[in-house]
């Protein structure tokens, strides 16, 4: 209140300085806002909500798997639980997670813009996402769906009992939100860069979001078409995928993975952008191999479109197609490896602050490397034949999507939290949370690699008793992981009330977002920033480390 009184006493020219959080307090000022920062907050609250729903489904799954007979749920109930978990987590949490929250907030700040190129489109994007989310919630309340998140035909079109059509329509609608965000990011990055912000001066976070926006725009329409065809076959019996109607079930798999493999890169590219920022800021050092890291993002986006067939090595796809897809899948690992090596080299001769963002970043690197290399194993044809559709695959993609993306999301949230909220959180608790998450994650998912190699198929409600020990360890790890994920909810919310006020640049980082106040004013900058240096322009030598300075 006292601050507000002070503001009113200021001259009219400085009204611009009012932070975006205090530029209006009515519901209308939030729900009809076109400020990218407020829309980012709307997204943040929404995806956390969906994360909780998806997480609750995961908790039920892990509880149920404590016993081989699956005493908690029926077979049908279990199938609905893992379908719900996958659908909510992929489309309503992971895909919008970093781009629509951190990206929405930080991209204009990083490039020195007042907002995204199409502020009202940005708000529309959130509303479309919410409409889709409510339909998905209605499906949950109405009994759910039992196809898995992959909607394989003809199971989904002719045999499944659940609300398949409503679910695919929810995902179809959410796709428009994704496409609009992609268009908005691409135009913003092309047209709204501050004077002097050349392409070679773009932060790597921007490069990775540029790459992911290309995938948003090119891949999502394919998913939309595929899901419409599923709905058409299910509702009207139009034969596309069911052989009994003259269709081809493998056509569905080709179309679905043509979207869904690039979708994996939708989830991981923004995370890689986050890590480049966190590592350079913590090491207080220029990124090693800027152009290699930047171009690697684009290479991942492009090659990522050419590897979908590696999901189909045992599907009946032709021998030679499988060999080609296997080779391309080896190739797509190269740009990811380049990034990991460059992050490591960036730490060399740095001046490294070991705070929570760095711990999350290092956790990301470890888990992403494990997920990526097991992905390389899955690209090997003879290995995939054995571990395809087993827990090995489940562990692999959780290492990428949860160990990778969710860890990076938490890292990003901690790193930019002072900028977003203007408050500092408790650093000790944050470090503990980062370590609990890392340990909890590995205890949950490492046993699943072993389960898979030993022959435990995925999506099994009832399982052979010899797998019980590893399943129980995995469930225990999940409990620890839940504690780790819950911790930030407490100390971050606490910081909003009681946390010390954050300075404009608490990390001593480079980047335009740190030149404006925390939280930023409504139009981001009081003066148009002009860029005269490259990104990560930290001093090349460190005569005295920061602690001594």
């Amino acid at each position: 209140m006292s601050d507000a009184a002070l503001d009113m006493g200021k001259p009219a020219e400085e009204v611009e300085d009012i932070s975006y959080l205090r530029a209006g307090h009515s519901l209308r000022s939030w729900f009809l806002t076109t400020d990218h920062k407020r829309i980012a907050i709307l997204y943040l609250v929404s995806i956390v909500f969906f994360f909780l729903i998806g997480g609750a489904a995961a908790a039920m799954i892990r509880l149920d798997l404590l016993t081989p007979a699956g005493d908690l749920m029926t077979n049908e109930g279990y199938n609905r639980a893992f379908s719900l978990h996958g659908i909510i987590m992929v489309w309503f949490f992971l895909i919008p997670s970093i781009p629509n929250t951190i990206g929405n907030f930080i991209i204009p700040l990083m490039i020195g813009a007042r907002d995204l190129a199409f502020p009202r489109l940005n708000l529309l994007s959130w509303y479309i996402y919410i409409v889709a989310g409510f339909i998905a919630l209605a499906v949950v309340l109405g009994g759910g769906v039992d196809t898995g998140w992959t909607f394989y035909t003809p199971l989904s079109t002719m045999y499944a009992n659940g609300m398949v059509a409503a679910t695919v329509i929810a995902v179809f609608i959410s796709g428009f939100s994704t496409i609009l965000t992609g268009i908005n990011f691409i135009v913003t990055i092309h047209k709204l860069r501050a004077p002097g912000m050349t392409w070679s001066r773009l932060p790597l976070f921007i490069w990775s979001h540029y790459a992911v926006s290309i995938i948003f725009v090119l891949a999502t329409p394919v998913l939309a078409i595929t899901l419409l065809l599923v709905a058409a076959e299910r509702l009207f019996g139009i034969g596309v995928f069911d052989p009994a109607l003259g269709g081809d079930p493998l056509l569905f798999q080709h179309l679905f993975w043509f979207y869904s493999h690039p979708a994996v890169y939708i989830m991981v590219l923004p995370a890689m952008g986050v890590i480049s920022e966190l590592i350079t800021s913590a090491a207080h050092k220029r990124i090693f191999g800027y152009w290699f890291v930047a171009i690697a993002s684009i290479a991942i986006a492009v090659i990522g479109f050419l590897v979908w067939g590696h999901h189909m090595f045992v599907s009946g796809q032709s021998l030679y197609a499988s060999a080609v897809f296997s080779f391309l899948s080896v190739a797509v690992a190269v740009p990811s490896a380049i990034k990991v090596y460059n992050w490591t080299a960036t730490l060399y001769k740095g001046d490294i602050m070991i705070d929570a963002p760095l711990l999350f970043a290092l956790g990301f690197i470890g888990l992403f490397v494990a997920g990526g290399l097991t992905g390389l194993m899955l690209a090997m044809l003879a290995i995939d034949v054995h571990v395809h559709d087993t827990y090995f695959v489940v562990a692999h993609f959780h290492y990428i999507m949860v160990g990778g993306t969710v860890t990076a999301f938490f890292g990003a949230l901690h790193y930019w939290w002072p900028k977003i909220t203007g408050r500092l959180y408790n650093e000790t608790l944050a470090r503990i949370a980062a370590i609990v998450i890392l340990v909890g994650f590995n205890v949950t998912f490492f046993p699943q690699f072993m389960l898979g190699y030993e022959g435990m198929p995925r999506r099994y409600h009832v399982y052979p008793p010899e797998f019980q020990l590893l399943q129980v360890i995995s469930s225990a790890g999940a409990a620890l992981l839940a504690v780790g994920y819950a911790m930030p909810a407490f100390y971050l919310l606490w910081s909003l009330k009681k946390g010390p006020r954050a300075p404009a640049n608490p990390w001593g980082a480079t980047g335009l977002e740190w030149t404006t106040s925390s939280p930023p004013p409504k139009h981001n900058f009081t003066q148009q920033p002009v860029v005269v240096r490259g990104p990560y322009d930290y001093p090349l030598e460190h005569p005295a480390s920061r602690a001594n300075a």
Partner: protein
Amino acid sequence: MSHGFFLWPVQASHHAKEVDLLIGGFGVMVWLLTLPVFILIAVFVFRYRTGRDANRDHASGSNVWLEVSWSIIPFLLTLGFFVWATALYFDLRRPPAGAMTINLVARQWMWKYQHGEGAREINDLHVPVNRPVKLVMISQDVIHSVFVPALRIKQDVLPGRYTTMWFTADRLGIYPLRCAEFCGTDHSVMGGRLIVMAPQDYAGWLARNRDGGESETLAAAGARLFRSVGCSGCHGAASTVHAPPLDGLYGGPVGLSDGRALIADDQYLHDSIMLPNKDVAAGYRPIMPTYANVLASEQVNALVAYLKDIGAGKPGTRQEDGNE
């Protein structure tokens, strides 16, 4: 089979040993590439942590040769494993000529098998040891996937399309066989056992099952169906209907009325029975009715076995049919 904890799945074929060797070798390479990175990260974070006195001079911002070498060397190493894994996979997809054929029909939520000698069974599959076995598989409803962990193999089973999988089990025993592709409510209990028997035991098992009512071979059952469901009415020698003769057909080329040509394999015969208008033989009108609602997949398999029997290299069988 022990129900306790076990670390490594049992190996019941030469292929299983090769896959284990491959993943073991790959694992070693992965550790060799990864461990230095993890160690370096730990060393750097420790040595260059803020406040610690360290030499931070002349930190480089880029090094093209370093970038190229850490991209190319791991890629080339991985390509070696790619060649190895692909060679193994090609073997897996090419059954040897002398393999014994067993038909598999999958449906929600069971496996049904038809042995060439006539025995039929559900969920459990009996096979002889040290003999190549080829499964010719089709689904009656959704996609399933046969997975035998002890053999390190799996293959999806598709509706309306034959897929094949082959193996030579070299170790006697009983091994789990599971469905790996999510197929609906009872997916997780769609299981069975692969029972690998000594040749004489397998012969005995076949004989006992014949005594139990399955007195005819699969092809003989097909021959009986060929007459009873009406195939011979048009395709038999005495028929006045203008329909293609079927002996000597299997395995040979077929010209189609739209100008395409294909080989008369299991899939072609299956489709000609179930979707007769899909591939109409050149010189014939599309007058054959579909049997999609008449015949079960097992019956189609029996008919295909019969047609294979009177296929290329076995002329003369047809007269016997005509005499019937």
